[in-house]
Every structure is written in C-alpha cells, then in structure tokens.
C-alpha cells in the first residue's frame, strides 16, 4: 500500500478528532481532552515539547509534570522523526492541500529559499530568547497546530473564532504566492523543536547503495517533495518530516527495486 494512503487516513482522523474532542467533552465524555498544545488520553498527558520548554523559560519554574509529559512526543520524534508534522499536524494538512491546489492552478512563487537548516534554528532560538526575556509564552501564539485546534474548540463551544487565526491566513497566503511551503520548511517553531530530538537511529529516508536496488535517476522523488528536498542528493535533514511522498513516487517508477526507503 502507498505510504501516502495511510498518511492521508491518519491526517483525516486527526482532523476528525479535533472536532470530536470538544463535542464529546461537552457531553461529559472527557477521556480524551485538550489540544495540540497539551492533550490527555485517559490518564496520560502529552505536551508539545516546545510548549514545555517555553513554560520553563517564561516562568523559570520547574513544573515536573509538564516537562515529563513532553517526553513521549520527544521520544516519538527521536524514533520516528518529525512524523507529528507530516502525519498529524493540521497546519501541514492545510498547507499540503493549498500547495496541491496552487500547483493545479499553476501559480508561480516569487521567492525560493534553499534547504538551509539555519533559518529554522535561528527562528526557534529567537522565539525562545524572547520568551525568556519577556517572561511571556510567545511560542503558544506561534504554534499553528495549537491555534487551529483551540480555535476549532472555540468555534464549537462559543460559536466564534479569534484573530489568532490571522497567523494561519498569513501562512497560507504567503505559501500560495511568495514562498512555497515556507512555514513547515523554515519557520515553524513546533517542528524545529521536534527536529532537535534526533540521533543516528532516528527513522529517515535513505537511498540504497546495493547493486540490485540502484536508483534510476528519474527525479520523481524530488518532484514529489513539497518541501523542495532532493532525496538522491542526500540533503534531507532537518527539513524532511518523513511524509514518505518521495518513497511512493520512487516505487511507482522502480517497482520492487525500492532504491528509496525508510530506515532506522
């Protein structure tokens, strides 16, 4: 089965959960509650590592439970890479949708940014420094998945949404007309923080060097990558969020040879 088929299912389910959780919570069924900032599944608490670190910096207090609850998401990133971004995050789902749309419409972008990881680490460092300096949880206001999930709940509970959604609008318009997929690729602090949890064994896309699995240089993998990465040039980390689109494109061309695959 295509990786993308499974991924679309997971994306769809996570969008559905974003609507179902507030609806169920209001009926008193609160086994699962929260948002992409912080989520309870039964007694287990999950917190976005960025938000946990932000709390530490903004308050200079060691909230053990909050920090511990970031360990599972960080652990998932350590093993599977930034799969939260590509498989779950609603901003990525939206951005993917609009990117597909703009390709169909043949919209051209004004700028391109290379695949340098410097921008994302500079942005993350600036946000964390400002959080420490002002004692204000700035990252919460810049977490696109957090904003989308809280505002969905707010729409269901209060019938209104807040101007926080302006950020989401700006991201979409920028990506449509100025720089392709710039948020997930270079700016998002949530993804940058998750990307810090990596090691040699973290799951990644690799190109086989075995003779019976040689790459045919069709370049379909690079064309399939919305983030503009090129798997055969080996320039993936830290932007690559393991969506698997390149692997699907590769299978289509090479069948059972599978030169491109996920490896731990």
């Amino acid at each position: 089965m295509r990786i993308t088929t499974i991924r679309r299912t997971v994306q769809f389910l996570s969008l559905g959960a974003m609507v179902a959780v507030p609806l169920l919570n209001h009926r008193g069924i609160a086994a699962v509650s929260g948002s992409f900032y912080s989520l309870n599944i039964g007694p287990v608490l999950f917190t976005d590592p960025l938000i946990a670190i932000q709390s530490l910096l903004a308050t200079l207090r060691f909230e053990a439970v909050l920090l511990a609850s970031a360990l599972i998401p960080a652990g998932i990133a350590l093993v599977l890479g930034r799969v939260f971004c590509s498989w779950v995050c609603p901003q990525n789902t939206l951005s993917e949708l609009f990117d597909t749309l703009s390709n169909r419409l043949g919209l051209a972008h004004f700028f391109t940014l290379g695949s340098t990881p410097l921008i994302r680490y500079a942005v993350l460092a600036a946000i964390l420094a400002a959080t420490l300096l002002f004692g204000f949880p700035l990252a919460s206001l810049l977490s696109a998945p957090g904003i989308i999930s809280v505002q969905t709940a707010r729409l269901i509970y209060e019938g209104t949404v807040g101007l926080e959604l302006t950020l989401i609008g700006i991201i979409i318009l920028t990506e449509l007309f100025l720089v392709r997929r710039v948020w997930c690729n270079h700016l998002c602090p949530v993804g940058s923080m998750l990307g810090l949890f990596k090691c040699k064994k973290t799951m990644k896309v690799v190109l086989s060097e075995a003779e019976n699995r040689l790459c045919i240089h069709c370049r379909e993998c690079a064309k399939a990558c919305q983030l503009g990465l090129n798997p055969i040039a080996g320039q993936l980390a830290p932007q690559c969020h393991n969506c698997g689109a390149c692997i699907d494109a590769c299978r289509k061309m090479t069948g059972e040879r599978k030169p491109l695959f996920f490896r731990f």
Partner: protein
Amino acid sequence: MSRDFLRPPGAVPEEDFIGRCIRCGKCALACPYRAIRVAGLLDGLTLMGTPIIRARLSPCYLCLKCVPVCPSGALDGRVKKREQVRMGTARIKKKDCLTWQGTFCRSCYDHCPLFNEAITMDSELRPVVNEKKCVGCGICEHVCPAESVAINVIPGGAG
C-alpha cells in the same frame, strides 16, 4: 492591575498567570457551563488564548472541574474545595441595590453558593458581603436584577 473579567478558580495571581498559562484551552473544554471563555486578540495581545470568565454573562458555579485539567500550574491543583477559591471579592453598590434603596430583594443572598456565609443579611435584612468568605464566583453579579447591576466581583487574589 485592573481587569473586567475573572480567571477560573485556582488561578495564580494575574502577573504569574500570563506567563504560566500555555493557552491550551483545556479548562474551557472542561467547563460544563461554558463559563470559561478563550480570550481573543481584541481582549489584548497578552491575554489572547487565556481563559476568562465574564460573570455577568455566565458565572462560575464552582464545580472545580477545570482545576485538575490544567497542565501548567496556572490553575493551582491544590485548590480542591470551593472555600479555597479566591477569584475576587463581591462588592455591593448601595446606591444601586434594590434592598439598600428600600425595595425588598434577596436574589444575591439566595443564590450565593456559600449560603449565608459569603453574603449575609444585616439586622434590617439588607445584603452584606463577608469579604473573608466570598470566593468571587460571580453568581450574585449574574442574578442581580437591578438595572445597573448593584453587585460586582472585583477580580483579584489568588486561588
């Protein structure tokens, strides 16, 4: 710091609250009365995403379901009983209060969840707020029938 809204029960003092609250919205999801609202940008950039209660619209009924769901310590988990809550203190404006002006009314007295403790009647059956007992839930403000609501919760305090 003056503000025209209350924080949910258990909230730490306002200057700490702004920094500690991670804007996750869990307390609003937990509130069965939809009393806890999520502040928008129009409420101010620093308040955006934080939980607020506008008692006149919808007060806090002190079920305390929001306190244990807070992951950040912005709502202090040690607050477990309604008597520990300190969202603010009710204040009666005698010139607007029906009873203090001579008409008989005991809406605030009757609806106060800390009945006959936080709001008592004086010897002439006029309501008086006991500031030591009042938790600031805002139910009195919500039920006051006077044209320009005569009892208001002044936000503040911790808990």
